[in-house]
């Protein structure tokens, strides 16, 4: 019985409250190599985001900003268009505020080219 109660409690936890917005998955994927240059970066999070305080910036190895404009937020998803990318490694830097006011941030890279 005790085991059941604990298991039920744990199972209920993820839906019992809002939580930090964590990166669920990204396109292009984290650490991936792309044969063709992507036209945008799309990040999916585990919670709804506050658009005014959420952003994506993409930079080249030289530090140049290659993302174009402000990121668009729709519920758990945030996307930003990219300029025409050549071969190289690019760094995606994201900062978000979830609707329950928790801030999260992170970064990852992806490659374009063989």
């Amino acid at each position, binding site marked *: 019985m005790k085991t059941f109660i604990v298991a039920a409690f744990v199972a209920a936890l993820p839906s019992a409250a809002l939580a930090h917005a964590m990166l669920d998955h990204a396109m292009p994927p984290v650490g991936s190599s792309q044969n063709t240059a992507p036209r945008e970066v799309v990040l999916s999070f585990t919670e709804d985001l506050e658009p005014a305080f959420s952003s994506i910036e993409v930079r080249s190895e030289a530090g140049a900003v290659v993302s174009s404009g402000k990121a668009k937020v729709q519920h758990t998803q945030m996307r930003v268009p990219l300029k025409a990318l050549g071969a190289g490694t690019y760094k995606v830097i994201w900062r978000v505020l979830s609707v329950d006011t*928790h801030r999260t941030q992170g970064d990852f890279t992806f490659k374009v080219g063989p």
Partner: protein
Amino acid sequence: MSAFPLRVALCAAAVAFVCCDTANAHEIVGNRSFPATLTIDDPGVADELALPTVSWYKTGDDPSVRQRDISFEFAKRITEDFGVSFGSAYSRIYAPGGPNMNGANGFQDLETALKYRLYKNPEHEFVLSVGVEIEWGGTGARDVGSEAFNVYTPTLYFGKGFGDLPSSLGWARPFAITGQVGYAIPGVSSTSAIDPDTGDIDTEYNPRVLVWGGSLQYSMPYLKSSVVDLGLPDFFNRLIPIVEASLQTPVSNTATSGTVTTGTINPGFLYVGQTYQIGIEAMIPVNRQSGTGVGAIAQLHLFLDDIFPNSLGKPLFGNSIAAGRPKFGN
């Protein structure tokens, strides 16, 4: 075997296994989240509840006896950088342990910890905190080794993630280490008791003890969200393999305690959910004085800042926007 050495051994076991079980938290530094560790404290300040932490092991007594502890800890931020925590443990010692060799049950002394985050460097995933842990003497049951006097332990905590390694060492970036060094100062330097076997008065000198330990951890959530998404099942992306070490070394006033270092090395896994964490580790004694055989410890840890973000889970004073755990994706 007289009751006196058994009591001494029980006290040593309590110091070795219980004092460090109830203080845990997690900490965010830049892209790094230092998870709650089971046998040492992590380097940060947070709103959390560890309930329960359950451990099973065989003590370092002669003969060794089985002991089970069920503990809890509640941690609350007063400000963004300053927090307080409360905890205790309920112990069951199996026969032939206990004062009459029939086993014993009871609470350990209540513990309070105050901690202040001194320095945080998000770029290098480094954090440094200081604190003091107080064991309130006389609040627990003597039969399970609780002290009758207070013990004060000023402690330094640190954490370092390796996310700043070059991309050529990307596989190593999910590694992190944490550590703590404390100096346990008993409120009284010695205690006396009448030996029931001989009628003599035995004096036990209460040593000052270096309480130290650390952890080496590899964050699969960090690997997935910052280095490479290997497309693993969600379960594996939430695991953190970890090895903890929790050790104590008497360093002064050691006439009756000796100076042998005791403690355990604890390999295991943490599973990090959105609002909770589950951890399980083996407890391997470092020597005979630390125990016999391999014990185990498990913990359910709740992130109150996620469960109650607008009430219990935020600092009492100051900034209401909480820094998040940035690297735990699904």
